[in-house]
């Protein structure tokens, strides 16, 4: 496939006796945003580092734009890859601008692109301050600016929003959205699943070094088959409610005073809604809740 930016082919990684990555095969297409999720120790970071060519796989192959992730051809490719490590740490004795200029020099991009980048991530006011005075969020912004040096076509972002406040998180995703629109491919990990589920096109779930599932949020939801949760407000007696739902397979039915909570399989959703509709005026409100990504994720991980 021409459009595959990243190809991971049957990759294994042993640390001594410990199997960290267990036969992962994965492709990421041009312009796609892939979310990589998994518990600590699921092999996310190891996979990340192997895709960046920082550590070699024990076996298997990884290609970026068709180039193996080692050797001198990959060095050239690195100029078009941006990387934001988890818990990024910079040199305390440099200012934000100097930090950026240092990495710009290594990447071979223009020094005068640095200040505009700091503006872009909202750090222009602190450009001439030393990094040791930066807050966690500011360091993270600086890390993001660093990853954007040299207009990368491929971004690896490891837990990019840790330490950012909600406002900054929104700004971050808006920048990411713009980049995406320009065809930049993004691989991102995050622990805050609710945050990335709306923002990635595809998810890959890692568990104990294996690729457990991959697909869109909707595909994952359907494949993991978690029950829907339906909350209702009503004015009828509990018997009447029970009667109305007679014969529908429910996984749970909890009836309160004027409320009730139903857990039902996705395939019975419309049936339940029709039955509830038959209650007429006695029904005041219906809220259907899809399982969240956390539920999906726990469904896989648990």
């Amino acid at each position, binding site marked *: 496939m021409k459009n595959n930016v990243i190809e991971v082919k049957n990759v294994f990684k042993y640390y001594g006796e410990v199997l960290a990555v267990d036969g992962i095969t994965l492709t990421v297409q041009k312009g796609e945003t892939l979310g990589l999720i998994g518990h600590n120790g699921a092999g996310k970071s190891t996979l990340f*580092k192997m895709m*960046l*060519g*920082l550590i070699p796989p024990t076996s298997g192959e990884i290609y970026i734009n068709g180039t193996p992730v080692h050797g*001198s051809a990959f*060095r*050239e490719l*690195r*100029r078009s*890859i941006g*990387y934001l*490590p988890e*818990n*990024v*740490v*910079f*040199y305390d*004795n440099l200012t934000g601008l100097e930090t950026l200029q*240092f*990495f710009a*020099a*290594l*990447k*071979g991009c223009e020094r005068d692109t640095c200040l505009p980048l700091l503006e872009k991530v909202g750090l222009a006011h602190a450009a001439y301050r030393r990094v040791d005075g930066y807050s966690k969020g500011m360091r993270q912004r600086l890390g993001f600016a*660093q990853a954007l040096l040299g207009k990368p076509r491929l971004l690896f972002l490891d837990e990019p929003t840790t330490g950012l406040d909600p406002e900054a998180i929104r700004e971050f995703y808006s920048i990411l959205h713009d980049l995406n629109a320009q065809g930049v491919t993004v691989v991102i990990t995050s622990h805050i699943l609710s945050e990335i589920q709306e923002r990635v096109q595809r998810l890959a779930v890692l568990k104990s070094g294996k690729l457990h599932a991959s697909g869109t949020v909707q595909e994952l939801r359907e494949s993991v088959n978690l029950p829907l949760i339906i909350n209702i407000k009503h004015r009828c007696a509990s018997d009447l409610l029970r009667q109305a739902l007679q014969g529908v397979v429910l996984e749970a039915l909890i009836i309160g005073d004027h409320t009730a909570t139903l857990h039902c399989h996705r395939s019975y959703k419309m049936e339940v809604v029709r039955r509830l509709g038959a209650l007429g005026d006695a029904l005041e409100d219906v809220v259907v809740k899809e399982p969240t990504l956390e539920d999906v994720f726990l469904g896989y991980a648990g």
Partner: protein
Amino acid sequence: MFNIEISQIKIIAAKEFRDRIRNRWVIAVAIIFTAFALAIAYFGSAQQGEVGLRNIEVTIASLVSLVIYLIPLIALILGYDAIVGERERGSLDLLLSMPITRLELLLGKYLGLSAALASATLAGFGLVGLLLAYQINIDALYHYAGFMVSAILLGMVFLSLAVMVSVISKDRARASGAAISVWFLFVLVYDLILLGVLVLSGGTFGDALFPLLLLLNPADIFRILNIFNTEDLKVFYGLATVFPVSLSSPWLLGSMMLAWIIMPLTIALWRFK
């Protein structure tokens, strides 16, 4: 692997060097060197019952005795953190994700730190050299310059060892421990063992072997380089009795120093994969 981009090495080296200028490391070490050199030049011949800037050869000999302890220690302290520090902070992955090879990173770090140490050495001892220049002849100045160059080489050898320690060590604490061990080994223990063996064997222990063993210690090479090439001191130290003239060529000794610089760096690169 071996297509090297000099510009990447320069960028890393320039950062290391600038860091040491900025945090006043270079000026602090230069001041220490100046102070010691002045004190030794002035009081160095006190045992002959005189003080003042007199005998340059004795001054060099005293400086050699000082530098042989001080420079390895300073170089090891300067360099042990080079790689393990980046790794422990978490910035190593970011650095290596840049278009730079490990060899370039290692050489950049090494050369930047070497430049810092060389500047401090040149500034510190050079200043005293300028003061001495009014009082001594051109020949002695030549020896003094030789002393400075060899001191820089000595520093570079121990920096190379420090970088090797820094690559191999798991964390900074272990790296500092290993660096101190390297210092003890080469500066104190090695000579003591040689001396012990020499005494125990009643002096019969290989006439040919002993000088070669001296060449295996960069600190001893430094001493020989500086002592052997001044007539007075050679006799004064009694070095000529154990060290053959054939091995005393500054070129041979200098090459040994270079080998001592290259070898640890090579091991460091090999282990840095």
